[in-house]
């Protein structure tokens, strides 16, 4: 039986958003805690490993899951079996108390943009307890053909290099591509055409509408030496400045990281394939080999909850082991 672990009541900004409590809740990331925002109060529930799932989510709420960096085709020592860990991630999703309405994959679906690698991911996702999967590409998905195969498979209703938007339960979702036309020495890049589209896409939305942006490379500067940032993201964030609730979901760095800046919550997800070192703690951001029994504790999925009328979405990370 899931019992409330904590109830936090801090409303410093007098806007019904319990940011301090939110951040404290996030400190439990990886332990399998569910944080639910209800009437401005953040409550966390421990997700048991067994079948103790009895959290009642009222109707009208939206739950979805973010997965990232499956790197299908990777087979080096950091993880010789990315198929098994990707399946474990789907099993974890299928064991959630509430089935997600959809899954967001924030890219590096494949390791080398090969047909068989994309096939494997699609095959395994068929066993996911959800009705839809939305994708944005990572730089590995653009290897060899600038994303042509990726767009054919996952980007049928997208524009340009693969950007698009859609609505779910009153939340506006925007998928951006920041891995195309990368310049020597640069970071991730959105490009003028996509930024122009983004400006138009949000122009007539009410500022009270929650917005979720998902893209592969972080849209904030995490660690530029390792390419962990996007050169022209400031312009994109400028178009979203007036919105009361903006959630930015990214991947690429293979570890969870958060930042809250005004009304914008930035969050990166774990990989389902292999971990990468924390910024500056290794000579490079390559795959990080850890003892086998530790691997799954450093891989994971991210659950996101939204309740109609509330500001911030509640984001929870769950590790695979």
């Amino acid at each position: 039986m899931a019992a409330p672990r904590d109830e936090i009541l801090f409303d410093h900004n007098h806007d019904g958003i319990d940011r301090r409590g939110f951040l404290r809740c996030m400190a439990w990331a990886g332990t399998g805690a569910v944080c639910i925002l209800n009437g401005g109060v953040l409550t966390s529930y421990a997700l048991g490993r067994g079948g103790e799932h009895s959290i009642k989510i009222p109707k009208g709420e939206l739950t979805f899951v973010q997965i990232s960096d499956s790197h299908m085709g990777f087979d080096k020592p950091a993880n010789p079996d990315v198929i098994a860990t990707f399946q474990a991630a789907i099993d974890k999703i299928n064991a959630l108390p509430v089935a997600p309405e959809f899954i967001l994959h924030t890219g590096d679906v494949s390791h080398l943009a090969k047909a068989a690698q994309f096939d494997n991911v699609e095959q395994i996702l068929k066993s996911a307890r959800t009705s839809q999967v939305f994708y944005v590409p990572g730089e590995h998905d653009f290897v060899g053909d600038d994303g042509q195969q990726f767009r054919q498979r996952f980007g049928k209703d997208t524009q340009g290099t693969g950007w698009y938007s859609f609505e779910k339960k009153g939340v506006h979702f925007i998928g951006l591509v920041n891995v195309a036309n990368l310049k020597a020495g640069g970071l991730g890049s959105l490009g003028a055409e996509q930024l122009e589209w983004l400006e138009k896409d949000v122009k007539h939305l009410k500022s009270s509408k929650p917005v979720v942006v998902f893209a592969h490379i972080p849209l904030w500067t995490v660690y530029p030496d390792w390419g962990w940032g996007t050169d022209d993201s400031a312009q994109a964030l400028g178009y979203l400045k007036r919105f009361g609730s903006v959630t930015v979901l990214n991947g690429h760095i293979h570890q969870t990281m958060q930042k809250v800046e005004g009304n914008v919550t930035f969050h990166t997800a774990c990989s389902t394939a292999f971990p990468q070192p924390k910024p500056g703690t290794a000579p490079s951001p390559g795959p990080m080999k850890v003892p086998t029994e530790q691997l799954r504790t450093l891989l994971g999925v991210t659950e996101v909850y939204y309740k109609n009328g509330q500001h911030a979405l509640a984001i929870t990370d769950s590790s695979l082991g």
Partner: protein
Amino acid sequence: MQRNTCVSILRAAALATLAMALIGFASRASAGQNPTGLQIAIDNFSFAPATLTIPAGTSVTWVNHDDIPHTVVSEDKATFKSSALDTDEKFSFTFAKPGTYPYFCSIHPKMTAKVVVQ
């Protein structure tokens, strides 16, 4: 007389071989060559040496030692462009014309280096 010619031919050959060996040694010393050809190593998301200076007509081979794939792409994305190199895979390019050739990894664009052809 035949013997003297033989000896002088042999001596000339020896001198020529020595001379070629010295030239070979000199170019190896200035360009970081190993016995099988000029190489640039890709390690920890960087190219080594970061600047390679070579005479025109030299062939250069890149080899990836990382556990993640990289590419070798000239900055203009046209002069040379490798496919994705997985661990231990190689790419070679012969630099015929003098000039400076900056290049990068198109998957990890922060990785930059250059070849200077004299």
